[in-house]
């Protein structure tokens, strides 16, 4: 269990660096798929079975396919993105400095966090427990997510669907 956790954490970090370091967006997407798989295993170690499943199905299955479709459709017959010198070429060093500062801040917070995990009941995190909570206690939030998705669909149709299609 603890070995699994550390393996998945190392995979998580390495693939995250690959995501932001790859030159071509498709390589980033592939690294992100591995990243999501490692995160799904981490969810499993946290007794979150349903979250592990939707991490694979929704994130790796739906959102990343959307990314891949956009990349393939955008880069037909054109150069890959990020050509030419950057107009903001000085942004690399400040962003790394900002990242290290954020990491120091978060590390201080994590070190100071007093977390004592009590023993979880045996049915904690089961899909049935999750569904029961989602459809009884948190029913209103569940309904609102449907509304959010409806608004997103309407917005995408409004922005992306045009009559004139040029290829």
């Amino acid at each position: 269990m603890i070995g699994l956790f550390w393996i998945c954490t190392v995979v998580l970090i390495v693939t995250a660096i690959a995501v932001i370091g790859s030159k071509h967006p498709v390589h980033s997407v592939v690294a992100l798929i591995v990243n999501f798989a490692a995160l799904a295993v981490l969810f499993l170690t946290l007794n979150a079975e349903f979250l592990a499943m939707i991490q694979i199905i929704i994130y790796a299955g739906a959102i990343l396919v959307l990314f891949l479709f956009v990349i393939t459709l955008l880069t037909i017959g054109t150069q890959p993105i990020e050509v030419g010198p950057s107009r903001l070429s000085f942004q690399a060093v400040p962003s790394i400095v900002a990242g290290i500062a954020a990491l120091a801040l978060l590390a201080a917070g994590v070190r100071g966090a007093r977390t004592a995990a009590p023993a979880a009941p045996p049915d904690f995190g089961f899909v049935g427990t999750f569904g029961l909570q989602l459809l009884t206690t948190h029913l209103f939030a569940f309904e609102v997510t449907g509304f959010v998705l409806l608004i997103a669909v309407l917005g995408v149709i409004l922005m992306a669907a045009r009559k004139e299609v040029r290829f």
Partner: protein
Amino acid sequence: MIPTNDYLAAAAALFVIGVIGFLMRRNPITMLMAIELMWNAGNLVFAAFARNFVDMSGQIFVFIVITVAAAEAAIALAIVVMVFRRRREVDVDDVSMLRG
């Protein structure tokens, strides 16, 4: 049982990598992927604290966050497609019309 602080440390590292990627890259699709990394770091913290406090609400929140992340990715990619239609290239440095 793995302590909650280890999960928090992993999530902090993931979040910081996402921040650095978002600030460094100029390609909006890669920037969106960096944002996804940050969403996922937040999700990991929610799930870790759900187990820490033996409360399913954290996991429910992760479910809702994933839904909102899907909506955000769809909207943002539609914006990228729109920008590409107008300019035939995608580089956030060049999309500065709203800067005034």
